[in-house]
C-alpha cells in the first residue's frame, strides 16, 4: 500500500511535466483523483485494510493527497501564467507610436476668440451672439449710419433678394436682409432686449464684399464689445482696453488712441498698440482696434436716455489679432485648412 502511494505520487511528479493546458490538466487530475483515478482506487481499497492498520494508512493517504494537491497547484499556476502570457502576447515595443489619429486641433481663430472671451470674462463681460443674416435696420439704421452711407452700397455689402423671408431674423419694419458687416447689430439687439448695466462682447463672422487677397477675406471674424452704465467715461474705455491688450499681448504692451470717425460713436478713436514682445513689429505703433463712446443717437434708437446712460463700444478683427500674435502673414491660411497650419496651434 505504502509503496503504491509512493508510486502514484512519483508518477504524478513525472507526468505533470507533460501537462501544458487546462484540458491536459483535467485529464491528468482525473487520472489521479477522479472517480477512477489511481489515488481514488487506493482510497477505495481502505475497506480491505485491517482495522488496526487504518490510522497509519489514513495518514499515508492524506500525505499522498497533500503531495498530489501541491503538484496540482503548481501545475495550475503554470497553466494560468501560460494562459495570461498567451492572452497578452509578446511584450510591447514602447517606442512604437500609437496607431490612432494624431491629436485633434482647435482652429487658431477659435483659440483667439476664446482667449479674448476669457480675458473679458475676468472683468465681467459675457459673450452675446446674433445671426449672420441681419437686416439693414439693425446693421445700419439703428447705428446712426446715414441712409446714403457708402457702406450700404451693393458694391460693399451683400444683400439677400428682395423677396427673401427669414424665419428667425426679426425685422424692424420692411427693411432689406443683408449679411452683417459687423457684429454691432448684436449690440443693438442686446440693448433692445435687456437693460443697463450691459457688458457684452460679441464675436462672430462678418461679411464685406471684398475681393480676396493677403489681407482681405470673403468673410472675417470680429469681436466687438459694449459697456453701458451710468457715468461711463473715456478714461474707463482706455482702462479696459489697456487691461485687455496687456493681457492679450503681454506685460509692457501700451496703447494709444487716435481720433477717428464712426457713425455709432462720439468721440471715436482708433487704437494703436506697441509691444516689445512681438519682435517682428518692433517699437512702431500698430493699428489694432476701433472704439468710442456710444453715440447719443444710438441710445435714442434703442430707447435709452442718453442723459442718464453713457457707454462705450469697441471692435477688432480676430484674424488680424491672430496674424499679429502668431506671426501669420496671409489671411488665406485661415481658410485653407492645411493640417500643417492647423496643427501648429493645437
Amino acid at each position, binding site marked *: 500500500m505504502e509503496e503504491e502511494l509512493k508510486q502514484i505520487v512519483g508518477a504524478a511528479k513525472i507526468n505533470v511535466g507533460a501537462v501544458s493546458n487546462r484540458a491536459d490538466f483535467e485529464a491528468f487530475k482525473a487520472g489521479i483523483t477522479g472517480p477512477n483515478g489511481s489515488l481514488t482506487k487506493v482510497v477505495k481499497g481502505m475497506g480491505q485494510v485491517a482495522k488496526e492498520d487504518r490510522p497509519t494508512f489514513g495518514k499515508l493517504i492524506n500525505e499522498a493527497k497533500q503531495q498530489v494537491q501541491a503538484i496540482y497547484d503548481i501545475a495550475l499556476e503554470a497553466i494560468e501564467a501560460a494562459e495570461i502570457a498567451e492572452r497578452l502576447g509578446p511584450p510591447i515595443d514602447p517606442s512604437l507610436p500609437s496607431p490612432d489619429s494624431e491629436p485633434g486641433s482647435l482652429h487658431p481663430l477659435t483659440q483667439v476668440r476664446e482667449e479674448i472671451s476669457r480675458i473679458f470674462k475676468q472683468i465681467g463681460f459675457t459673450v452675446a451672439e446674433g445671426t449672420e443674416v441681419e437686416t439693414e435696420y439693425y446693421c445700419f439704421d439703428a447705428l446712426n449710419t446715414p441712409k446714403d452711407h457708402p457702406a450700404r452700397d451693393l458694391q460693399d455689402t451683400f444683400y439677400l433678394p428682395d423677396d427673401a423671408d427669414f424665419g428667425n431674423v426679426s425685422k424692424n419694419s420692411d427693411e432689406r436682409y443683408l449679411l452683417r458687416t459687423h457684429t454691432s447689430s448684436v449690440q443693438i439687439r442686446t440693448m433692445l432686449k435687456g437693460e443697463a448695466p450691459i457688458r457684452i462682447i460679441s464675436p462672430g463672422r462678418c461679411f464685406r464684399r471684398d475681393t480676396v487677397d493677403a489681407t482681405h477675406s470673403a468673410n472675417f471674424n470680429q469681436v466687438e464689445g459694449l459697456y453701458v452704465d451710468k457715468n461711463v467715461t473715456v478714461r474707463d474705455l482706455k482702462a479696459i482696453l489697456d487691461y485687455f491688450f496687456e493681457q492679450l499681448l503681454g506685460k509692457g504692451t501700451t496703447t494709444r488712441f487716435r481720433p477717428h470717425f464712426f457713425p455709432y460713436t462720439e468721440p471715436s478713436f482708433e487704437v494703436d498698440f506697441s509691444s516689445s514682445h512681438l519682435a517682428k513689429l518692433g517699437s512702431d505703433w500698430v493699428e489694432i482696434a476701433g472704439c468710442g463712446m456710444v453715440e447719443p443717437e444710438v441710445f435714442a434708437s434703442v430707447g435709452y436716455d442718453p442723459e442718464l446712460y453713457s457707454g462705450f463700444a469697441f471692435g477688432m478683427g480676430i484674424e488680424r489679432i491672430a496674424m499679429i500674435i502668431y506671426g501669420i502673414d496671409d489671411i488665406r491660411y485661415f481658410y485653407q485648412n492645411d493640417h*500643417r497650419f492647423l496643427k501648429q496651434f493645437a
Partner: protein
Amino acid sequence: MKISLNWLKHYIDLPESPKEIADSLTLLGFEVDDMESTGLPQLENVIVGEVLGRQQHPNADKLGVCRVALGDAIGEKTIVCGASNYKVGDRVPVAIPGAVLPGGFTIKRSKLRGVESDGMMCSGKEIGAGEDAAGLLILDGRPELGTPINAVLTESDTVFNLEVTPNRPDCLSHLGIARELAARYQRELSYPAVDNLSAPGDRPSGEEIFKSVSVECEEDCPLYRATVIKGVKIGPSPAWMQDLLSAIGLRPINNVVDVTNYVLHECGNPLHAFDARDIKGSKIMVRNAREDEKVVTLDDEERTLSSRMVVIADDERALAVAGVMGGQNSEVKEDTKDLVLEAAYFNPTTTRWVSKTLGLSSDSSYRFERGVDPSSLRFATDRAVQLILETAGGTVCGPEHVAGSEPMVKKEVELSTDWVRVKAGFEISDEEIRDSLERLDMVISEESDGDWLVNIPSYRGDLDRPIDLLEEVLRIYGTDKIPSGAVVATATRENDNPITEFSRRATNYLVGQHFNEVVNYTLRSKAEQQSWSDSVSRMALGLKNPISEDQSQLRHSLLPGILESLRLNQSRKTGASRFFELGRVFHEVKGKVVEMISVAFAEYSLGRPRSWKLREADDFFTVKNRATLLAGFAGIDIGRFKVSQIVDDSTAWQEGQAALIDDPRAGILAEFGLMNLERIKALDIEGDIVAGSFSILPERLKTAKRVQFQPFSLFPPTAKDLALVVDQSELANDVVRSIEKIAQKATEGAFAMESIYVFDIYEGEGLPAGKKSVAVSMVFRSTERTLKDKEVNTAFEKIQNVIREKTAFEIRD
C-alpha cells in the same frame, strides 16, 4: 487724399521734418497711409563750387585733380574727380568733409591714388536729385559760391497720402489741413490775401457777354454764383502752380482750368469755368435734367441723365452735370476769350446720388457729397479771379450774378466744463478746454461759472452738440495723453450665450476625438449646393449681389467645406484624417429660411491610410454615436426623434448607409452615415468617408437647467429576453418602442420596466426570406422590494400575449 508739404508751407511755417508732420496729422485724426518725398533731401555740407582748373592725376589715367572755388568762407580746395563732362568755369555741387550723402555715404578728407582730396564733386544721382550718374551735375545760372545746395535745387517736396474721415469735409484741402496743423502747433495761419481785386460795383459791365443766372431746383442748389471775366489769354499755367498740381497727381491743362483745380485743392471749393461763347442765350439755369437728356462730359463719355439729376443749362442744352463734371460743349479751349466762372453749393445727398447713379466721381463731386462750406464761396471766387487775372490776364466784370442765398450756418453750442470732465473721466482744466476750442477757431461768446456758449466756425458742419466738442477738446489736448485708470467691473448677472456654451462643449469633444477644426467660407457655389440634394436645390439661399458664382449662396451644410479640407489634405499628403467645423448654416422650412447653428465632422472610416497596426473601421454606428453626443450638448436626446434612412433624394449620402433626423418643430436636423461613394470619388478623395452633422435653431438652445436628483432602486433587477421575427425593413427602434409600450402597460402599478435594449439581430438560416429576428432584453425592477419570479413571469406572459394579439411580430422560441 494727397497733400503737398510745399503747398502747406504757403499758409503755415513748418520747420518740422516730414515724419514729424505725418505723426502730427495722424494724431489729429488724419491717418497718413504713406508719404513720398520727391526732389533733393536735406543735405548738410553740400555747397556750390566752381572748377578753376584741372590737371591730369599723376597715377590714374581716368582721374583729374581739380582746383575748386567754394566761396569766401572756405576758399579754394583740391578735389580729385573721375568725371569728364565738365569744363573749367562750371559750377557744380560739392560735398565737403562732413557731408552725408543719400545712402549714408560720408565724405572725409582722403587720399586717392596718392593725391589728397578735400571732398567730392557730385552727380545728380549722388545727391539724390534724379537718376543721372553719368557725370557731374552742372548747375545753371551760376549760383553764388558756397551756397547750400538745398537753396539752389529747391524743387523738393513731400506728399502725404492721408485719410480724411467723412465727418471732416472741411479738411479736403490744403488750407483745411494747414488749419489743423496751425491748431496743433499753435501757429499763425495765413490765408491768401484777395484784397487787390476791384470792388464789384467798380467793375466794367459784362452784360454783353453774360446776362443772368437762375435756379429752378433750390433744394438741390441753394446758392449759385457766376462771375464774368473777359479777354483772357489761354496758355500754360505758371511752373509753380504746375509743380504743386503735379505733386498731388493732377495733370496741368491750361491756366484757367489749373486755377480752378488749384483753388479746389487750396480751399476745398469746387469751381468750374465755362467758355462764355458757348452759353446760348447768355443765361445759366440750374434745373433738373430732362428724362434721357444727353450730355458729353469732359471725360469724353456721353451721359444719359434722368429727371432727378441736376444740370447747369443754357437756353438750349445742358452744359454740365451739377457738382459732378462739366460738359465738353462749353469747356475752356485754346481760343477761349471770355469766361463765366461758377461757384456753387450743391446738395450733398443729390450730388452723391447723381455721382453714384452715373458711376462718375470727380474731385468736385467728392467734396459736394461730403458738404462744402457755403460761406466760403465768395472767398473761393475771389481767389480764382485773382489767380486767373494773374496768369491769364483779362478783366473781371460786374455785376455779380448770384442766385439763392447763403444758408444760415451760425451755430452755437452750450458747453459745461464740468460735463466735459465727467465725460472724459479725468481732470482737464477750464483753461485747457478753452485753449483747445480757441485753437480750433471757436469763440466762447458767453460764459458764467463754467457754462459756456461756444460759437462754431461755419466750416465745421460736424459740430452741433456738446459731445462733438468733447471730441475736439480731446483731439487738441492729445488723445494719446488720455490717462488709463483702474478697471471698473461691477457684476452684470449674465452668462455667456447658450450658443457659446454649446460651441465650446462640441468643439472640445471633437478635438478630444482627434478631429481638426477647420473654417470654411459661408458662401458656396450654386452648382455645388444644387448637386447636394433635391431638397437643398429648391431652397432660396442665393444672394442678391454675389461677387461671383463660386460664392453666390449661403451654405446649407458645413460638410461640403469639410470635404474640401479632406481633399486638400489628402492631395498635400498631410496625413490628417479627421476634420470638423462649427458655424452657421441656412435651411428652408415651409418657405422661410432659417439660420441654424451647426456642427459637422467627417473622417476616413479606416483612419490613417497606413499604420503598423490596423484598427477597426469607424462605421455608421461610430458617427451615429458622435452625432448623438453632439446633440446631447445642445440638450437634445436624439433617440427620442424619428430616424429614417436616407434614400434616393440625396447624392450626398450612400443610399441605405446613412440616416436623417429632421424635426422642424423641435428645430433640429441631423444627418450621419457613409458619404456617397461616387461623390467622394468624383471629388478625388480616396477612401470611404463617414460623417455626420447636427444643426439646431439657435433660439432652441437653452442654458442648461439644474438637474434634480432622482432616487434609484437598491433591489436587484430581473431580466427577460425575447426574440421577435419582424419584416426586414422594420426599424429596430420601432420594434423596441412598441414592446416598451406594451411592457409598461403590463407592469403598470406593480413595478417598472427599467430598460429595454436590443442585444442581437439575426437574419438568414432558419428564418423566412424578408424577415429578421430582433432580440431584446427587458430589465424589470421595483423600488420597494425584490421581485418574485412569479410576478415577473406573469407580466412576461402578458406581454407575449399582447404581442401575439396586437402586433405583426412573431415571437421566436
